[in-house]
């Protein structure tokens, strides 16, 4: 151990949970008040020395580090990148920057301010970086946020930075800390070392550790570790535990071969995707009729034995349908879409892959059929039966047939139900079909459904919505109009914005009216949220990430049952005025200009809520919870 020579610094705190049984988060905080201070390393056994050593490493890392946005000098460290096709060496690596190190020798190639980047993920290059690093590298030690997965025997499974195999010693150190505490019939949750927090999550034989100096609350970091674990379960199921029962020294890395990119993209999404802490999903804004048409298509598919059918655009839901009584947890949706979007091979051709939904059933695989319609829009059909894929595959064949033969599609569209005969005839050119056969019936069902999808232009509407974006704070209606006169389409809302009186106001303030910069509205009943599009002054990925971190903090403090539950919170600092409002039905998080007036801010929040209600049919998937249409 490179660090074991250092003596433990005295200001570290070991926060023990005296109860070995895992408790809900709210309890942990109160219990954590039992704070033990290690007086010195000499009094303890070897493990304590190692623990102390690790603490010192962290202490050393603190130097010269500050959370990105507050220091204008925080640079875009764009060191080595993955093998991606991203050509420009000057583009920012959104996440890398802030969580990465600030000043490093090869800084020269990457300092470009990110202002103007529309999406924080736009410049992010997938894949693992800095594989050449290990715990002896200064650059590795300076990284702001590390994630590790290791086995209970101390074998590395995943590390965000550096080569896992080279980190065997470091992993063993982490394992030693955990087992030291476990030997005392206790469980380690958190170690604070100066600005650093070391958060531990123990899941049977799998240990997850986050070392971070990003000032995120403990609950957030722990939630991120939970998601990381969920992502692993999604790939392997919980039956992985059995491998460890058979062989405690089991090496899991070969089983996770090729999944680095899945984990790194999830970790990146902690910075830009509010779903990671809101535990809710978001929908692509669409006209109510369009979403219904998409839902009807999926329903037809679901009726033919699919457990879940999802049509998604990036990480936003277009529509989703589940079989009777089956419901999909927002965290599972997040992990699933992250898995699909980060695995390039899904884009190359239609695929069939086993996946596990940790919140649905962590012990069993489902089978996912994935097909991309265009660069961003994809269909996922999940079934419990591996055989079902042969039906699904055939469904897809029909889609190709239609795409390649517009005449047929036209024919089908115009003749309605009589299309089936046409289709059967058409398809007979290729293969004899028996219309009584159930496969053929499924096939025809799908075909008709697909035609609906095409006829209602769902796919083109999806693309249009992608281009147009969602709710913008500038478009917030100035005065609560009588509801009947409210335009219902978001796009019409936008046309309204062009009217002179609103325009005059929008140039006076920065951002939206009354200094509103951004908001997130989470509907508790629907498990969905809507986040306003980013607009100046929250324009750079760094600023966006900082805002999300502020929301994250707000979310944690609002949900801290130890001191809560709170209904409202108004918080002003040098960056923002943040206002949070929690009711039985919704949670609203809003960011304002730091000089915003409190009364005006509250009034604006009321208007935001009214606005969301007025357009809720377009921004939310209605009736998704019982999945009955």
């Amino acid at each position: 151990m490179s660090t074991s020579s250092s003596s433990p610094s005295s200001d570290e705190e070991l926060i023990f949970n005296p109860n070995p049984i895992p408790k809900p988060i709210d309890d942990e905080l109160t219990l954590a008040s039992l704070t033990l201070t290690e007086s010195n390393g000499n009094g303890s056994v070897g493990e304590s020395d190692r623990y102390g050593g690790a603490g010192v490493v962290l202490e050393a890392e603190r130097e010269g580090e500050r959370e990105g946005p507050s220091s204008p000098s925080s640079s875009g460290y764009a060191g080595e990148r993955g093998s991606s096709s991203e050509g420009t060496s000057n583009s920012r690596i959104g996440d890398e920057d802030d969580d990465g190190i600030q000043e490093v020798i090869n800084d020269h190639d990457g300092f470009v301010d990110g202002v103007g980047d529309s999406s924080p993920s736009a410049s992010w290059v997938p894949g693992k970086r800095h594989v050449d690093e290990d715990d002896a590298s200064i650059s590795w030690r300076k990284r702001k946020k590390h994630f590790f997965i290791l086995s209970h025997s101390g074998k590395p499974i995943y590390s965000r930075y550096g080569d896992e195999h080279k980190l065997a010693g470091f992993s063993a150190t982490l394992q030693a800390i955990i087992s030291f505490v476990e030997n005392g019939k206790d469980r380690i949750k958190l170690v604070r070392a100066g600005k650093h927090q070391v958060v531990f999550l123990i899941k049977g034989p799998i240990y997850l550790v986050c070392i971070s100096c990003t000032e995120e609350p403990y609950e957030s970091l722990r939630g991120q570790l939970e998601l990381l674990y969920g992502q692993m379960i999604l790939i392997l199921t919980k039956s992985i535990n059995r491998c460890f029962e058979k062989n405690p020294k089991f090496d899991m890395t070969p089983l996770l071969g090729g999944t680095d990119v899945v984990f790194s993209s999830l970790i990146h999404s902690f910075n830009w995707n509010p779903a990671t802490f809101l535990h809710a999903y978001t929908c692509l804004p669409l006209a109510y009729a369009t979403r219904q048409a998409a839902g009807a298509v999926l329903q037809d598919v679901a009726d033919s034995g699919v457990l879940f059918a999802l049509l998604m655009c990036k990480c936003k839901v277009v529509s989703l349908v589940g079989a009777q009584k089956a419901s999909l947890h927002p965290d599972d949706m997040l992990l699933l879409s992250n898995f699909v979007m980060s695995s390039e091979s899904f884009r190359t051709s239609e695929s069939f892959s086993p996946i596990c939904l940790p919140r649905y059933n962590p012990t069993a695989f489902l089978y996912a059929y994935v097909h991309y319609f265009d660069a961003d829009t994809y269909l996922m059909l999940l079934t419990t039966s591996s055989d079902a894929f042969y039906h699904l595959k055939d469904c897809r064949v029909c889609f190709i047939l239609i795409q390649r033969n517009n005449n047929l599609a036209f024919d089908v569209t115009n003749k309605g139900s009589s299309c089936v005969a046409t289709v059967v005839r058409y398809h007979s050119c290729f293969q004899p079909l028996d219309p009584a056969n159930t496969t053929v019936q499924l096939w025809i069902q799908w075909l008709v459904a697909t035609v609906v999808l095409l006829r209602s232009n769902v796919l083109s509407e999806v693309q249009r919505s992608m281009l147009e974006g969602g709710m913008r704070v500038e478009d917030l209606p100035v005065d609560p109009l009588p509801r009947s006169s409210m335009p219902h389409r978001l796009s019409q809302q936008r046309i309204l914005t062009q009217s002179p009186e609103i325009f005059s106001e929008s140039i006076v303030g920065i951002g939206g009216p009354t200094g509103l910069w951004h908001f997130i509205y989470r509907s508790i009943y629907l498990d969905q949220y809507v986040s306003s599009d980013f607009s100046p002054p929250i324009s750079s990925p760094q600023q966006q990430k900082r805002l999300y971190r502020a929301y994250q903090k707000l979310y944690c403090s609002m949900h801290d049952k130890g001191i809560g539950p709170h209904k409202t919170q108004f918080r002003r600092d040098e960056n923002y005025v943040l206002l949070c409002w929690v009711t039985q039905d919704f949670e609203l998080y809003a960011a304002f200009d730091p000089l915003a007036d409190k009364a005006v801010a509250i009034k604006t929040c009321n208007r935001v809520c009214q606005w969301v209600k007025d357009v809720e049919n377009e921004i939310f998937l209605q009736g998704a919870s019982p999945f009955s249409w």
Partner: protein
Amino acid sequence: MGCSGSVPARSSGQSGGLNNLENAGSSDAKNLRVKLVLLGDSGVGKSCIVLRFVRGQFDPTSKVTVGASFLSQTIALQDSTTVKFEIWDTAGQERYAALAPLYYRGAAVAVVVYDITSPDSFNKAQYWVKELQKHGSPDIVMALVGNKADLHEKREVPAQDGIEYAEKNGMFFIETSAKTADNINQLFEEIAKRLPRPSPSS
């Protein structure tokens, strides 16, 4: 597989071998439709072989296959028959090994791929051959493919080893390069020639 088996059975008389095909409704003497599965260690170039064959493309940035991808391609033979390959390109990762039966079940053709620069992948190929002999359809057509033939200066598996192993196991052997497209079409044409033809009866 569900009910698909009944489709070919009812439609036209076909020989035993092709009855195994998934939804092989359209197979007749002139137009064959076969299920082909690719197996082999991760990183040997299975997807590259398929993409070269189906799309004529080669992408040097390796994209790890997840689960299995499905592609199809039809070729015409000189005797005016056409063969439509329904290709299951499986992921080589260890975690998917248990799922392989899902893909090779009912396959008429199995292409087992290794990398000529990696003896490990050759061992893995032999594992797949044994597995297919145990659990695959008895009349499956098997091909052993040594890929990355363009990297001959890094070769570690002599062609002779491949030839001998293939011969012993009644397989057809070829070395290919998805990068240079060398022998890719030949591989599939050769497979097509070896397919059992449905009897022209009924």
